[in-house]
C-alpha cells in the first residue's frame, strides 16, 4: 500500500513539475522561431516605421496578445475571435479589442495589422493550446478529430450497452449471494 502511494506521489510530482514547465512563458526554440517569423513578416509589411513594432506575441486558446511599441510607448493589445463557438470551427479571423480613446487616429492601421495577422495565422488549426505545450505535442493531437458516422454511432451505442450490461452483471451477481 505504501509502495503504491509512493509510486503515485512520484508520478504526480513529475506531472506537477511538467505542468509548471508548460506554464512558463519560455517557448521552445521551434515555436519561438515560428512566432518570430510571423512578427518579422508583420513588422515588415506593416511599415509602421521604426517607432512602431510588435515586441512580443503570445497565443492562448481564446486570444492572441500582442505587445506593440509605438512612439516609444508599450501597448498591450488582444486579438480575439469575435465569433461564437461554431464560428471558431468554421473560419478564423481576428479583430482588435482596444481602447478607442487610447488608439484614436490609429484604427485604420490597427485594422490593417489585424488583416495581416489573419493571413499569417490562416494555416493554424482552430484550436490553439498554450504555445509551449502545443509545440511539444504530436501534430494529430492539435487537429480536430472527426469520426465517421457509423463509427461514432456504434461507439455511443456500445458505451450504453457495455455500461448497462456491466451494471446488470454487478447487480445480478450480487443478488445471487
Amino acid at each position, binding site marked *: 500500500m505504501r509502495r503504491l502511494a509512493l509510486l503515485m506521489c512520484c508520478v504526480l510530482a513529475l506531472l*506537477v513539475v511538467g505542468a509548471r514547465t508548460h506554464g512558463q512563458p519560455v517557448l521552445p526554440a521551434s515555436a519561438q522561431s515560428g512566432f518570430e517569423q510571423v512578427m518579422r513578416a508583420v513588422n515588415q509589411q506593416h511599415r509602421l516605421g521604426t517607432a512602431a513594432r510588435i515586441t512580443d506575441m503570445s497565443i492562448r486558446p481564446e486570444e492572441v496578445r500582442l505587445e506593440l511599441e509605438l512612439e516609444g510607448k508599450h501597448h498591450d493589445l488582444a486579438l480575439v475571435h469575435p465569433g461564437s463557438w461554431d464560428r471558431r470551427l*468554421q473560419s478564423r479571423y481576428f479583430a482588435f479589442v482596444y481602447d478607442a480613446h487610447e488608439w484614436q487616429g490609429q484604427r485604420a492601421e490597427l485594422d490593417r495589422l489585424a488583416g495581416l495577422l489573419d493571413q499569417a495565422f490562416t494555416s493554424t488549426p482552430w484550436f490553439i493550446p498554450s504555445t509551449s505545450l502545443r509545440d511539444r505535442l504530436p501534430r494529430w493531437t492539435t487537429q480536430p478529430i*472527426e469520426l465517421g458516422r457509423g463509427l461514432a454511432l456504434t461507439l455511443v451505442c456500445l458505451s450504453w450497452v*457495455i*455500461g448497462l450490461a456491466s451494471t446488470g452483471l454487478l447487480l445480478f451477481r450480487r443478488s445471487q449471494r
Partner: protein
Amino acid sequence: MTAAPSAALAKRTQWWLVLATVTLLSLAWLLLVSGPPDLIADTARDLLMARDCSELGHCLTVGAKTSLDGFYQGGAWLQSIALLQSISAGIRTIQAAVIALEVLSCAFLYVFLSRWTSSFVSALAALIWLSALCYLGDHSLLWNHSGVALPVVLADGALLLFVTTRRTLALCVAAFWTGLGMGFHVECAVLVPAEVAFAVLAARRPRVATPAMLLAFLLALLPTSLEATRANLLFLAGSRAGVPLLVGVAVLVVVAAAGRSRFLKARGGTQLAWLAAAIIVPPAAGLLWLELRGHLVALRYAYAALPAAAAVAAVVLDRGFCSPSRRAIGPGAAGLFAGALVSWLLWTSGSRAVLSRLWTGSEGKTIAARLDASGYSYDAVRWHLQGPRAWELITVLAAYLPPPHSPQLPLDKPDLLILRPPPAGSEPGSSLHPPGRPPLLVRSIRPWLDFTRGQVCILPARAGRDTEPRCTKLATRPEKTAGFRFRSRSYPRLFDTTTKPPYIERFEIPVHPAGSDARRFIHVLDARERCRWLITGVHGARYHGRLPARDLVLERGGSGDVTFTRRVDPVACPGQLERYTRPSIAETHPDEVRLRRALEAR
C-alpha cells in the same frame, strides 16, 4: 412450505412491488409534467451538431463550450441524439428517450439503495431524486443535463456497492458511468476524486483496482469525447488551476493511503458517511467557489452529487420520524412529508408556465415545413421574420430547415409575421396547426422597413471614454453550400462586434413604403426583456407619435430611416443576452386593433 422460505418470498414480492410502484410513479409523474419540449438556443445548437453527424457524416468527439470558459462538453449527448436522428426519430422521440432514462434512474436508485437499507428509505430517496430531476434539471427543456440522470445514479450506486462489498467490478462500473456521464456533461468529473480516494481506501487490492478503474473510466470517456478530453486537459495544463489540481490529487492519494487502515476498521455506517461526504462536498464546495468568483452557477451543476444527497436526506428523514422510540408518530409524519413532497412536485411543474413563451419542437417543425414549402431558405428566414420572440424562433427553425440549396434560394422574400395564438376574429393571414399546440397566425407582409439594407452602430458606453460609434452595414452573407455545416447556424447573428458591454446598439433602417397601405404601424416587441428596444429617431420620413416610443405610425409619401436603440449592459440588465441580431418588430395596418392588442400582450 416452511416459515423461512415463505418469509423470503414475501420479502422479495414486497421488493418487486415497491420497485414497480417507484417505476410507474416516476413514469406517470414525468409524463404528467412533460409537455411538448421547449427548445432554447442551446437545444437547437445540440440538434444542429447532431445533424452534422447524422446527415452529413461529420461527427466530432467534442460538444459545445461550457459556461466555464476554456472547458468543452463531451460528445456523448450529441452522438446519442444523432443515433436517434439516424433512425428518423424526431424531437418527441428524443424526449421519450430522456424520460425513459430518468425513469430508469429512479428505479436503479431504489435497486442500489435497497441492497443496503430498507425499501421505504430507498423508495423515499428515489422520490426525492425524482423531484430534484424535475425541479433542478428544468425538465421541460431538452439539453445535455437531460441525459445525465442515469449515468450519475449508476455511478453513485456502484460506488455505494463498492464500499459495502469492496468488489473491483463495482468500482469499475462506477468509473465507467462517470466517464460516460462526462460525455454528456462535464460536471460529472466531480465524482472522479471520490472514486480515486475510495479505490485507495477500500479496494481489496488497490494496485489492481486503481488501474482497472482508470481503464474503465477512459474506456467510457474517450470513444465519445476524445477531442473534448484533450481540449480540457490542455486548457488545465495551460491554466493556473492545473498545478493546484495535481497537488490536490496527490494529497488526496496520500491522505487516502494513510487513512486506509482506519477506514477499514470503521463501522459500515461510518464508511458510507465518508462516501456520502466525498460525493457531496466537492461539488458543493466547487459551486460555492464559482459563485464567489462571479460565475453563473445553478444547483443542476451538482447533479452528480444529487443521488447521494437524496439518499442522505431519506436516511435522515427516516431516522428522524420513524425511529423505534417514535414509532407512533412516524407514519403520520411520513405521510405529512409525502404530502409536502407531492405538493413540491406539483409546484415544480409550474415552471412550465414561465417557459411556455418559448417555442416548442412541434411548432418549429411545422413552421419550418411551411417555410420550406414556400421557398424560404434559412438565410431568408434570418432576415424576414417578424413577431414576438423572433430570434428564439429563428434558432429553433435553424434546427429543422434543410441545408442550403444550390443554387441559393432568393433572399428578397416578403416578411412573415408569426404569432401564437392568433387573435380572435378574421385577421388576414393563414393559420398553422402544430400538433398538440395552439394554432399560429402566419401572415405575409411587404415590409416598409428594409433590414437587409440597414446598418448597425455600436457605441461604447463607458463613462469618460470616447463614444464615437462604429457602424457597419448589415450585409447579407449567404450560407456556404460547399463545406456547409449545420453547426454554423448556432446562435444566429446578423453582425459581429468586438466591443465589450456596456454599449449602445443602434439600428438605422431605411424606410421603403410598399403595398397599398397609406400608413403602416410599427411595433417594437418583446417588451418583457430588460433594456428593451425603443424607436429613438425617424429621419426623412413622416410619422405620428412621440419619440422615444415602442410604436409609431409611418406615413406613405416620404422615405428616410428609422432608428432603434437599446443598451447592452449585463450589470444594469442582468440576464440580458448579446444577440447580435435585429430588434424584434411587427408591421401592421393601423386599423388592426385586435392584432395590435395581441402583439402587446406577448
